């Protein structure tokens, strides 16, 4: 902040003020205990003992490897599926139909998707029931290890099912820029096959747009807790899931080792990202000659069908999981091998709905405020930086993304202490501030690329016609960015709604949201209740995405170039 220019640095200053405290407190709450400093437990010496304790944990190596590989593989496979499908089908009716299914799936919370999937594929699950005993001969469910397998296959599948819609939505946004369509036409007219045209011409153009989200996906997948707990192995469990157990152990001294584990987790996520970057470099190097060779590869029918098959498989699995959740929310008793519940009941649903209006109100208010503040702040920051013709500096970017990379549970202990020290904990404002710490990175992630890829000439033309900066922003830039801004708002809303630990810990139980309520109720394991609340949790983000999709459709009725016609 050496050259302080009030106009250009005010939004940066606000972001710094908003994030620096929480991030520093969160980091201190992680790093200090990792090196043996947690005075309230009587630990005051800087030592490497917590790391020694961590590395003596049985199966630590397997846990670390599991987190690393399942996260990396799931991210890579998801990307491959999304790219292959886009390559094979973008611009077709099929593509549009599938994308209509995929975007709403993004609003399904990870945990809900995992629960649905687990019930779908378990030996006593929905699919087995449809086929038993008449086809399989299974009078009783077979003792098969399909969920929680030691290699994490089920968990990887669960992650893929969730990451595909996310990456797809971002790819869709990237594909929707006018010049991309002309590239497609050029490639086709030069005789390139659909898929080779995409990989050789389009992908190099759009990849920069999906690169940062891809890194976030890797960071997320390598440190995921809820999906790991529901679908992942347990002997041993992936690192992140074990961290939560240690953090919550009644033996408080385990917290030191857990903090050391949080740093290890950070290393795992960073390592996976590095491996991905290396992989990216190798692919770029190897393909550079092939890209220019000019092979048209016209007969790609088998590849296209495979891409479609995979995508349809994922979409159907997700839809079936959702269907199963809906049935469960109305099922009183539903025992193997009954394909449909033996007893139906709406008691759980009506009970939830009766208790919910206030909770729903709090959740929506928090989510909408967090979404509006984070999106406006991001836009303001980006606009000022563009105006000053300087990039968003590296430190600021790092600051924004740290909350995504550190395991929440360790991070939050420090955050909780900060809020306690300023006497803010337990208030709505405090929870909102805590949400912003985790929502802002996503808002920044979703908006910064679309912003940077705007054609600067529109703004210049407007300026040359004498439009003020504010007018350019509100009349030219913002309207053209309507879609990404709305998607950002919806993503931010979804992220805010999904926050469990920050709401519980910072809210001190005073601020109750649909998510704190559902996680608490789901801890009892009653499937009906779990399903009801998973659906409630899904409702708000779903509405958000629906609105985000509907507004541009209405607004741009007479703006062909801004319409979403993939």
């Amino acid at each position, binding site marked *: 902040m050496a050259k302080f220019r009030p106009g250009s640095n005010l939004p940066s200053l606000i972001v710094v003020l908003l994030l620096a405290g929480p991030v520093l407190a969160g980091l201190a709450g992680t790093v200090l205990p990792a090196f043996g400093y947690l005075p309230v437990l009587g630990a005051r010496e800087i030592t490497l003992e917590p790391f020694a304790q961590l590395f003596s944990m049985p199966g630590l190596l397997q846990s670390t490897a599991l987190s690393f590989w399942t996260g990396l593989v799931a991210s890579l496979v998801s990307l491959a599926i999304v790219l292959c499908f886009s390559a094979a089908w973008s611009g077709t009716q099929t593509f549009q139909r599938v994308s209509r299914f995929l975007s709403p799936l993004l609003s399904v919370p990870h945990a809900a998707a995992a629960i649905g999937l687990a019930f779908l594929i378990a030996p006593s699950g929905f699919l087995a029931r449809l086929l038993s005993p008449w086809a399989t001969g299974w009078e009783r469910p077979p003792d098969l290890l399909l969920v929680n397998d030691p290699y994490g296959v089920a968990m990887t599948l669960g992650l893929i099912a969730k990451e595909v819609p996310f990456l797809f939505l971002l790819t869709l946004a990237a594909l929707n820029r006018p010049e991309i369509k002309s590239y497609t036409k050029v490639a086709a007219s030069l005789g390139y096959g659909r898929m080779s045209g995409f990989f050789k011409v389009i992908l190099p153009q759009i990849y920069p747009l999906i690169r940062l989200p891809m890194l976030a996906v890797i960071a997320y997948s390598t440190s995921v807790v809820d999906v790991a707990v529901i679908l992942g192995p347990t002997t041993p469990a992936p690192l992140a899931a074990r961290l939560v157990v240690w953090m919550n152990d009644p033996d408080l001294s385990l917290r030191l080792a857990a903090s050391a584990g949080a740093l290890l987790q950070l290393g795992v996520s960073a390592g996976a990202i590095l491996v991905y970057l290396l992989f990216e470099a190798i692919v770029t190097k190897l393909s550079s000659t092939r890209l220019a060779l000019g092979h048209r590869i016209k007969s790609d029918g088998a590849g296209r069908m495979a891409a479609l098959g995979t995508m349809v498989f994922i979409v159907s699995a997700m839809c079936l999981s959702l269907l199963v959740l809906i049935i469960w929310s109305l099922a009183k008793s539903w025992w193997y091998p009954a394909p449909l519940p033996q007893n139906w009941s709406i008691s759980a649903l009506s009970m939830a709905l009766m208790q919910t209006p206030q909770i729903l109100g709090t959740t929506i208010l928090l989510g909408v405020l967090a979404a509006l503040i984070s999106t406006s702040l991001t836009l303001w920051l980006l606009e000022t930086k563009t105006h000053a013709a300087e990039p968003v500096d590296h430190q600021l970017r790092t600051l924004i993304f740290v909350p995504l990379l550190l395991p929440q549970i360790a991070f939050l202990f420090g955050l909780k202490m900060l809020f*306690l020290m300023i006497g803010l904990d337990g208030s709505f404002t405090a929870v909102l501030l805590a949400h912003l710490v985790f929502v802002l990175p996503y808002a920044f992630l979703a908006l910064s690329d679309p912003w940077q890829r705007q054609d600067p000439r529109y703004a210049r033309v407007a300026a040359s016609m004498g439009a003020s900066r504010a007018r350019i922003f509100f009349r030219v830039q913002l309207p053209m960015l309507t879609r990404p801004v709305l998607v950002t708002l919806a993503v931010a809303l979804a992220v805010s709604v999904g926050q469990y630990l920050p709401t519980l810990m910072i809210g001190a139980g005073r601020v109750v949201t649909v998510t704190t309520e559902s996680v608490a109720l789901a801890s009892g394991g009653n499937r009906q209740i779990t399903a009801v609340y998973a659906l409630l949790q899904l409702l708000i983000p779903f509405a958000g995405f629906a609105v985000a999709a509907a507004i541009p459709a209405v607004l741009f009725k007479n703006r062909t170039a801004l319409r979403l016609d993939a």
Partner: protein
Amino acid sequence: MKRLLIAAAALISGLFTLQPVSAQDSDWKDVLDEAKGQTVYFHAWGGEPRINAYIQWAAREVENLYDVRVVHVKVSDTASVVSQVLAEKSVGKTSGGGVDLVWINGENFAAMKTNELLAEPGWAQSLPNWTYVDTENKPTVLVDFTVPTDGQESPWGMAKLVFMFDTARLDTPPASLDALLAYAKSNPGRFSYPQPPNFYGTTFLKQALLNTIADTSVLSAPVDPDQFEAQTAPLFNFLDELHPHLWRQGQAFPKNAAHMRQLLADSEMDIAFSFNPGDASGAIVNGELPPTVRTFVFDGGTVGNTHFVAIPFNSSAQEGAQVFANHLLSPMAQMRKQDPEIWGDPTVLNVADLPANEKALFDTQDLRPATLTPEELGPTLPEPHPSWVTALEQAWATRYGAGGQ
């Protein structure tokens, strides 16, 4: 009006009418006065709708009777509450804490006690309804996992390990640890237990330890690390033999008690267990288990304990919390809690010594066929010292939770 309410309260809890006025009573009046208008944030596990509904009922009662507002903060893990109080203590917040009362026992209580996160000792024994608590036959109301409660937590309910089976598939359940092993061997894949450190999994380990250890008296003292391996050798021999025959060959485990219950209902497993003797009856009423499910215990008894409510040191509504804790101990509240249709959690009171009217409430109670009578439930084996839990979980994780061995 308020006087009238207090009078009504006194009548209902049967206190002032039954005992001579003493210094204790006037102290309690002060507590009631102080409590008036307070809001008590009661942090309690929220995973069971029946329990949540019961807490709501009790909260309404104390609001009407004593003008104390109780808010149930539903948590998924009590350890997060310990964490919260710990964080508050870290920054020196000695009053106005976020937690006024917490549902707790065992290791979490021990952790809060040793880290001085609890309110001053003695309040629990000074509650008027304490006189009804069965300290004689239920020693665990005073000693929580061998740690003396010192009046820092007030008993709420009793827990005891009971096994569940479906009479539609199984006639005679295995009534000892050896019989269970034999059953697992001849019916592979039909029994398992949640993976420690899940509370239920650890409880199963404790039961198996109690049944296999040569000298149970060492369990009431802290673990001696030098002796631990020798003392637990029979336990791990048993588990080594059992594991290949477990559900999923012991490569995956049920997540928790509810998951076990589900696996029993889905006929994936033949035997499940619970820590609440009324659980099976409640689950049948709820439609979560088939009506043919029954419960059994091992010959020689099963492990059991008491669960409590405790007040953190920095609670801003200590008096209100005491009033609520006292109300939870009232015969009416305890009777309702024991009703399987409501919750099904056994009382901590000495029913035999209750005044006739209150005693009748319990005597006429229908515990449903899946609940064992107190006689059938057999003796309750005491919990080992909390240090055993950590040692057992560690040893278990090393042997079975580390993958590939």
